């Protein structure tokens, strides 16, 4: 995992945290101010280009953030190495599936 370790992972964890934090803040503020009343309004909001792109980027960066954080936790607490590797492989596969599923939801919504 030399691609995402050490200083690079440290920095990426922070950059993704700032983006995810801003996204969550804005999403919460928007949904509180203008809660979508029905499916049409909700669908229109999600598929609006700026929102759609911001959400797709959020999904990608959030999963990167989650991977780096989970990796830290696993490396700190899990022993032996075989258990560590098993959990990391399962988690990595899980994150890939979540990314595919998330993007599929967004693409499907845009095509509908």
């Amino acid at each position: 995992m030399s691609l995402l370790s050490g200083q690079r992972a440290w920095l990426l964890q922070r950059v993704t945290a700032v983006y995810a934090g801003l996204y969550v803040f804005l999403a919460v503020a928007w949904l509180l101010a203008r809660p979508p009343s029905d499916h049409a309004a909700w669908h229109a909001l999600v598929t609006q280009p700026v929102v759609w792109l911001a959400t797709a980027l959020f999904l990608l960066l959030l999963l990167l953030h989650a991977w780096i954080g989970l990796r830290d936790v696993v490396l700190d607490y899990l022993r032996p190495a075989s258990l560590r590797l098993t959990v990391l492989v399962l988690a990595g596969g899980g994150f890939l599936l979540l990314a595919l599923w998330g993007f599929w939801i967004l693409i499907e919504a845009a095509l509908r």
Partner: protein
Amino acid sequence: MTSEVRPVFLDLRKIRLPINALVSILHRVTGVLLIVSIPLVLGLFALSLSGPEGFSDAAAALRHPLGRLLLLGWFWLLMHHFFVGIRFLLLEVGIGETRQGSRDTAWSSLAAGVVSALLLWVLFL
């Protein structure tokens, strides 16, 4: 390798965590639980976008007593992770590094997480 036997104290019932250690470990716990929640959130997101019926089903799920309870817990996970995350970023730029300062920001972030979670819960339902 040294033959010296070093003391190990890992009795979790007897370890008293200072407040900054408590919010820190809770940051990790909430992070892991938020990861576990991603499939649920994505499922709800997909359902809500699937059509008018799916949208009202998703809304109904959130208004169900169990849904409400989960939502409260989820808001706390999110808000605790959010505010303690901000605290860590501030620490890294040198804000709150003194002993008292780090205690103050730890208490503040813990309280902000709890209060904002309750507030969001009340406002959204």
